[in-house]
């Protein structure tokens, strides 16, 4: 059901044309109705048009604004069906399979949608057909509003060759052969054309006739399951919104139970009466079928939004979609306590991630490397369940060899006093404070990973304790013999 976007011009104002610079000349690329009625057409140069109608209103084409408008209209069309395909630069295709009865039949749906768009100031042509290509061609070249089931091949016969959407030179070649309509093409054997114009043309013809399936590329991923509430009277109060969301969540969880699945990604869409659409996404770390928990996550998310949802004049449609689901066996009545507790902790991680962002709620995973900066990886806790990895631990009775906190990047220190030239410092200063070393152990030489940073230098690490008992992890950058005045850094602090 393609929609042709055309800006509306007020009747009593001068005709509006939109121009674009093509090959050095300004040419008309879009016209208002009055301009069309005055005899103008696309492709005429602006100078010619001005000669015919002196008081022309001229606007330069703005592709970015056009794309944004198409996007906004597509968002609004989501209220009809979640499967909306953009047909740039000026069309949209909606898959309304199974949706029309919600609006009182195809005719009512078409009328309602056109009216809604006209109120927004858009003149559209809307066609309902059994195949997307048929509808798309009819909206641009035809005069039919609703194609009866199975009537696609008959309806497209009168369309011009241009409806196939071929390259300009192919279109001209076919026209020169005396073939003006799709019907004329369809009557002739397909091999004739495929040998001259390629297989692609035959495919296009078959798709146009509704005989071959057309690929669908929706703007958004198609939800596994979706539920919606429509409101005759728009709602705006937050408690009403929450009540509606709660009902939807309950229904969704019942449906998930029937399918023996749990949701991983939930999306709530709030459709405002004025066409604005707001989407709120929550993710869970494990398949979820408990509506109370889902609702709590949504509440966290709504609470923590930097720009709260503005109901404007109210929402007339709220939809809950499940974008990802996973198999989840029926809940057993007697779970052992351990599993239930783990689930509660996972739920806590989900709630915290929803509020503060997944990148702020972390778990540690060990890495097999000697580079201290990379020895542990922080991964989002909500997406990585608790594991039991093996962390290196020194032998019984040995003190800790790695600091509890490290600086990234290491911080430079000044050496005040050394005992042996290549040994640890006796006194150093860091952050404008002097530290007298009482105990030291080292060096522990850690070579950089040459495949990551070929220019990095070897580091000699020392464990240091000062007279007050503070324990530091210092290193000397580079080889003592090679460097005249090696730099020292503090990399971490021990407990």
């Amino acid at each position, binding site marked *: 059901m393609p929609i042709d976007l055309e800006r509306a011009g007020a009747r009593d104002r001068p005709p509006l044309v939109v121009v674009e610079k093509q090959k050095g000349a300004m040419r008309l690329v879009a016209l208002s109705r009055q301009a069309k009625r005055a005899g103008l057409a696309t492709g005429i140069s602006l100078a010619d048009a001005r000669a015919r109608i002196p008081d022309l209103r001229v606007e330069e084409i703005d592709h970015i604004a056009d794309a944004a408008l198409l996007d906004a209209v597509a968002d609004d069309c989501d209220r009809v069906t979640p499967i909306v395909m953009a047909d740039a630069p000026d069309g949209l295709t909606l898959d309304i399979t199974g949706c029309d009865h919600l609006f009182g039949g195809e005719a009512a749906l078409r009328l309602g949608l056109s009216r809604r768009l006209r109120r927004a100031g858009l003149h559209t042509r809307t066609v309902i057909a059994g195949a997307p290509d048929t509808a798309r061609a009819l909206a641009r070249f035809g005069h039919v509003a609703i194609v009866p089931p199975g009537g696609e091949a008959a309806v497209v016969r009168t369309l011009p060759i241009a409806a196939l959407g071929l390259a300009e030179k192919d279109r001209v070649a076919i026209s020169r052969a005396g073939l003006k309509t799709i019907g004329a093409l369809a009557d002739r054997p397909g091999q004739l054309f495929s040998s001259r114009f390629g297989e692609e043309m035959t495919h296009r013809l078959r798709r146009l006739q509704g005989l071959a399936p057309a690929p669908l590329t929706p703007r958004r991923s198609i939800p596994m399951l979706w539920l919606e509430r429509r409101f005759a009277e728009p709602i705006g109060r937050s408690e009403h919104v929450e009540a509606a969301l709660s009902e939807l969540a309950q229904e969704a969880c019942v449906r998930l139970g029937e399918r023996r699945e749990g949701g991983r990604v939930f999306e709530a869409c709030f459709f405002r009466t004025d066409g604005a659409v707001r989407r709120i996404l929550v993710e869970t770390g494990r398949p979820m079928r408990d509506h109370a928990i889902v609702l709590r996550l949504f509440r966290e998310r709504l609470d923590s939004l930097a720009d709260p949802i503005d109901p404007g004049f109210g929402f007339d449609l709220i939809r809950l979609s499940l974008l990802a689901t996973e198999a989840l066996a029926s809940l057993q009545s007697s779970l052992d306590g351990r599993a239930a507790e783990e689930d509660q902790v996972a739920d806590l991680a989900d709630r915290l991630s929803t509020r503060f962002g997944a990148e702020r709620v972390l778990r540690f995973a060990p890495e097999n490397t000697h580079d201290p900066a990379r*020895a542990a990886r922080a991964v989002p806790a909500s997406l990585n369940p608790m594991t039991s990895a093996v962390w290196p631990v020194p032998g019984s009775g040995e003190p800790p060899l790695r600091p509890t906190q490290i600086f990234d990047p290491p911080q430079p220190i000044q050496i005040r006093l050394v005992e042996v030239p290549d040994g640890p410092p006796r006194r150093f200063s860091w952050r404008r404070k002097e530290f007298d070393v009482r105990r030291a152990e080292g060096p522990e030489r850690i070579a950089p990973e040459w495949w990551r940073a070929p220019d990095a230098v070897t580091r000699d690490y020392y464990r240091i304790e000062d007279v007050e008992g503070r324990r530091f992890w210092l290193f000397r950058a580079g080889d003592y013999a090679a460097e005249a005045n090696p730099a020292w850094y503090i990399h971490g602090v021990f407990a």
Partner: protein
Amino acid sequence: MKAELEALRERVLRLERGSSPVADVRFSIGSPAIDAALGGGLVRGALHEVFAEGMAHEPAAAAFAILLALRASGGKPIVWVRQDFVGLEMGEIHAPGLAELGLSPDRLIMVRARDGPSVLRAGEEAARCPPLGAVLIEPWGNPKTLDLVATRRLALAAARSNLPVLMVRAGGAPTPSAAASRWSVRSAPSCQLSGRQMEADAPGHPCFIADLLRDRAGAAGRGWTVEWNRDRLAFTDIHSAGVSGNSAAFPGDLVPAAAGGQDHPADAHRSGKSRRAG
């Protein structure tokens, strides 16, 4: 008389948090001296504050708090909420270092909060989750929102879930709060290691001087020097001259002190290999 008072105290505690088993009321620290002074350990379902004696001792305060959390948690997950600025100022948490203290980093859920209010919010959310072992909260300085009301909320949440909430006040000064205990911690010189593969003057096991500034049970005003024993996952007492910081070597491998049977030796001895990189 004293026993009666103790019994009464337990009864009041039980009334305050409904009906939780008596055995769960306190967790032992491991050090006999501190446990005895506290009457068996720190109260489990309560808020405890840990301050550092000066900025340079912040790492010791954070480590002391996480080790208390480790003592209390009994193998359950620990949530550590930390304000971003603490990491910038004091260094980011290094998981292998925690593993070397005996805390398996797998059990840790780390929450990085942008500001003081978020720290408190996340901390309270975590404190309402009873299956956790402990919650560690680390705001920076004295956030405006951290007042008597906020600490009271934390303390109530802790009591309701019977979960210790440990607040490390990095860069902060004591303010009125509903904490059950308040500690001031500093690093202490470590004890001489008993030979083996270590060098003679190698820094030893983590040692702390912990002063109890305030305690609901009335043990405040005392200080102890303790050492963390990774093998037993417990603090142990260090007697005599440990505080003064002189370089006299401490004899031997320390007093093997017995505490309530809350040790979890399973976590240690994971892999005995020490990493000497080359």
